[in-house]
């Protein structure tokens, strides 16, 4: 077996940009700085942490979807060897507070208390009832078995429409299961529907999904009892928000709390939350004065970590006979589960701004009803509200095309915003800054051979081939880069949408970039190094990125909503600009020139007209550190901060095309070709962007074909482990053809747009549209997701899908 010297390992794949000197970093497919540790196992996952005196916490969870707690007896658990403590909800009631929801979407929204451990009543299978603390994870698991709980069963309510009858109340004190109703309207939909030649109405189901980040959740809390300080290590996407929320929930002074997200193994929204176990571990560490660790098992996490999606969408579209869209009406029911987690109510509301998608119309009406059920709470899952909306609109566009007898791509072209209409104010009130749907679509159709595949489809239909071909389209856009703080304010969100960056110029000329983003797979260390290297003219290798520790990177709004680059990366760029301006002042002083006469290029300051009078930025850094000879009144530092509050959302877009072969005898669908052309504006690192698209596609395709969280009528999660919940493997997914068009964003100085969620948002309707397209000659106009072979086969037999 050959072994390769580590020094020979390449640092870059073939470059895409024209840059003969090799000095421009932005646009280069730099290999990741993150990888060396990760491919050799030198990792720092939360569960790796072992500390002297550390004890393990385990949570006893309700086996019932809905019940009164009559008695919790932890005495037998306490009597077991190696057990330090055991607490019921009642034991902690005075100090555990209520888990936060930061997004009260309406003034009259029902926000029931959400105790980390249930005290009187459990409301979903997996609701925490008691905790034990023992010397190791095995002893803790044993002790859980010894806790006795008496329940008085109450009826479960798992179906949203049934829940809306209020016959069974999830929260008696709320008086209703309707958490909120959130309406939006622009134009008079009913009036345009009256003028329409055709009105198409459909009900689509967005099934419930389980995010399944590969790293299960965990938390470690180390207390310093004498000074009442706590360090919280958590598998979180949001160390900064978590610190604030833990302070507010537990009453711990904020300055005494330090939150660290060490290596975090994926999130996809599931770690964008403040969880019961984070609060409980803090309370237990405070009581015991010992480091406490909790790590979920996967099956436990399937109950106790948030789920995603879960909507019933009633959608109506009105159009003229030539295909001109007149209006769109959307009535949503969103299953919130049993409690509100951090942004639960806001997720479906984000869809309000996306159902209209890239299309022009005269009237738009949106209503969302948030509904409590006795199930695991839902919250943000990759795309959060926007995949659901994109699915609904891209599916109904295909249905409208079928009704009109038009090619679905022609229908889209007739109605989309054309490239010369940007900036464009949409019917939902957003201003799309830039886009070119024509260019992305033309490229995708060529890569896909759209016309050729349509011809083949026709032939197969005519020959009654047992394998039928379907072609699915998704011409999507999305809003991301969360978000302008003022807009979040108008949506009643509890915080802003800015991001912070600090640049530390070290005396040796090396650079520390401190970012408020919290990467967990996205490659920020590499991409931020590229941004800083260009802005400061320093080598890529000389930049270190510091993140995800509230003491080292004290200000941040963290990573979610495809915001990190368009807010946090831009903040890095702008903070570097402030460093350069400070350095220019020092350079001018040292070069005895006027500041206005000093140019900066490639890391060197030089005097206009006399290039021999020059100083590299590294030398300026050392001179500033020494402070011996600085301009009068100047602070001896080049370090600079920038807090970026974006002026607008980011609107990536693209055209995805999917060809599915369906064996009509077995119902088995095979993705034969998948083409994704995405426009994410300027690209910092094309390799990382492509990776984000691949992963997004996999998750979106998984919703279309494989995944569903299923509950039985009693509220049991029957897909409660990886055995039953079908996360696709390499064997289940196709090779993707990806490409890009590049229409720079005009809302930030780098011209960049978000990319993290695009693939997930676009792909689900592309796949389902392809399946329905294959089956439409058989009179089928929908297949419920996931479109399993069985569901397709049943549809083909004329039954319900």
């Amino acid at each position, binding site marked *: *077996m*050959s*072994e*390769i*010297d*580590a020094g020979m*390992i390449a640092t870059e*794949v073939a470059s895409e940009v024209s840059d003969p000197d090799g000095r421009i970093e932005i646009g280069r497919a730099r*290999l*990741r700085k993150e*990888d*060396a*540790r*990760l*491919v*050799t*196992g*030198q*990792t720092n*996952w939360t*569960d*790796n942490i*072992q500390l002297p005196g550390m004890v393990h916490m385990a949570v006893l969870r309700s086996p019932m979807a809905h019940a009164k707690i009559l008695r919790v007896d932890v005495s037998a658990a306490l009597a077991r060897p190696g057990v330090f403590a055991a607490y019921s909800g009642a034991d902690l009631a005075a100090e555990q507070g209520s888990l936060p929801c930061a997004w009260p979407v309406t003034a009259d929204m029902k926000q029931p208390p959400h105790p980390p451990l249930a005290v009187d009543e459990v409301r979903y299978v997996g609701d925490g009832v008691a905790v034990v603390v023992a010397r*190791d*994870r*095995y002893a803790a698991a044993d002790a859980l078995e010894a806790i006795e709980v008496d329940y008085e069963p109450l009826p479960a309510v798992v179906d949203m429409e049934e829940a809306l009858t209020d016959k069974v109340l999830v929260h008696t004190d709320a008086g209703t299961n309707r958490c909120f109703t959130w309406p939006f309207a622009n134009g008079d939909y009913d009036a345009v529907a009256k003028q329409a030649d055709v009105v198409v109405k459909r009900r689509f189901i967005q099934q419930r999904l389980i995010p399944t*980040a*590969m*790293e*299960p959740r965990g938390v470690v809390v180390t207390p310093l009892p004498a000074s009442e300080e706590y360090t919280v290590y958590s598998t979180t996407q949001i160390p900064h928000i978590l610190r604030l929320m833990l302070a507010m929930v537990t009453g711990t002074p904020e300055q005494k709390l330090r939150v660290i997200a060490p*290596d*975090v*193994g*994926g999130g*996809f929204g599931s770690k964008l939350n403040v969880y019961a176990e984070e609060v409980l571990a803090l309370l237990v560490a405070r009581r015991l004065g010992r480091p406490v660790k909790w790590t979920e*098992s*996967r*099956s436990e996490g399937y109950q106790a970590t948030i789920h995603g999606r879960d909507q019933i969408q009633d959608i109506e579209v009105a159009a003229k006979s030539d295909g001109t869209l007149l209006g769109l009406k959307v009535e949503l029911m969103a299953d919130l589960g049993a409690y509100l987690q951090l942004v639960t109510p806001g997720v479906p509301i984000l869809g309000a701004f996306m159902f209209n998608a890239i299309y022009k119309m005269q009237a738009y009406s949106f209503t969302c009803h948030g509904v409590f059920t006795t199930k695991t709470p839902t919250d943000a899952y990759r795309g959060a509200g926007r995949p659901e909306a994109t699915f609904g609109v891209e599916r109904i566009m295909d249905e409208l095309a079928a009704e009109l007898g038009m090619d679905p791509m022609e229908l889209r072209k007739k109605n989309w915003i054309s490239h010369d209409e940007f900036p464009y104010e949409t019917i939902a009130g957003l201003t799309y800054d830039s886009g070119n749907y024509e260019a992305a679509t033309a490229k995708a159709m060529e890569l896909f051979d759209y016309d050729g595949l349509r011809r083949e489809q026709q032939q197969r239909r005519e020959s009654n081939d047992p394998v039928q071909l379907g072609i699915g389209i998704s011409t999507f856009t999305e809003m991301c880069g969360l978000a302008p703080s003022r807009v979040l304010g108008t949506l009643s969100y509890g915080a802003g949408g800015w991001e912070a960056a600090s640049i530390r110029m070290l005396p040796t000329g090396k650079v520390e970039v401190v970012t408020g983003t919290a990467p967990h*797979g*996205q*490659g920020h260390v590499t991409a931020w190094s590229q941004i800083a290297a260009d802005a400061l003219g320093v080598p890529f290798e000389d930049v270190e990125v510091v993140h995800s520790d509230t003491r080292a990177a004290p200000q941040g709004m963290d990573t979610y909503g495809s915001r990190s680059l368009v807010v946090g990366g831009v903040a890095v760029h702008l903070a570097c600009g402030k460093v350069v301006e400070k350095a220019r002042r020092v350079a001018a002083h040292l070069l005895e020139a006027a500041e206005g006469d000093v140019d900066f290029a490639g890391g060197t300051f030089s005097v206009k007209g006399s290039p021999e009078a020059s100083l590299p930025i590294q030398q300026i850094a050392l001179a500033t550190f020494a402070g011996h000879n600085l301009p009068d009144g100047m602070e001896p530092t080049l370090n600079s901060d920038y807090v970026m509050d974006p002026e607008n959302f980011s609107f990536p877009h693209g055209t995805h095309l999917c060809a599915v072969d369906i064996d009509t005898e077995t119902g088995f669908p095979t993705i034969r070709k998948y083409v994704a052309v995405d426009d994410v504006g300027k690209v910092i690192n094309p*390799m990382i962007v*492509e*990776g984000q698209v*691949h*992963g*997004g*596609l*996999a*998750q979106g395709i998984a919703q279309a074909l494989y995944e569903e969280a299923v509950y039985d009528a009693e509220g049991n999660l029957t897909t409660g*482990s*990886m*055995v039953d919940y079908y*996360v696709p*493997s*390499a*064997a289940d*997914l196709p*090779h*993707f053809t990806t490409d890009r068009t590049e229409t720079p964003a005009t809302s930030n100085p780098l011209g960049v747009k978000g990319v993290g969620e695009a693939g997930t948002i676009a792909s689900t309707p592309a796949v389902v549209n392809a399946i329905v397209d294959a089956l439409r000659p058989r009179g089928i106009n929908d297949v419920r997701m996931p479109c399993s072979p069985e569901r397709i086969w049943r549809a083909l037999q004329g039954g319900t899908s």
Partner: protein
Amino acid sequence: MTRIRMTVDGVSYDDDVEPRLLLVHYLRDRLGRTGTPIGCDTSNCGACTVDLDGKAVKSCSVLAVQVDGSVVTTIQGLAGDGPSGAWHPVQKAFHEKHALQCGYCTPGMIMAAVDLLRDNPAPTERDVREGLEGNLCRCTGYQNIVEAVLQAAAELKGATR
């Protein structure tokens, strides 16, 4: 308690363990070999894959006592000696083909790929996809993982020619 003896990443250990202790917990909690992570509790995800006497196994599905007398290699023992020792071609290919994002599945994915290439030194794309069916990744969509394994196969083939 049962006495076991095994070699892990080149170091021999002699320990008393509970018979129910899983190999992965022995590696992580007793030996501090935390490079091997745990991703599930049903043997589906493969994150904990290690090499046991020349075969890839999911270390969550093996009891430590079953491994008595065996040689275990984890991701931390795959590269050459020392923390910056020479990488295995599969490790190198994962880096060069951007076959990892969060990196949580990566140790198991690499160990499974090494085993796959031992059994089938010249796999097709389909062979790789099916050969890695027992290892789940949530970040990459697998495309770059497949390409990395094919690249490593080509490199290993060149090295043995």
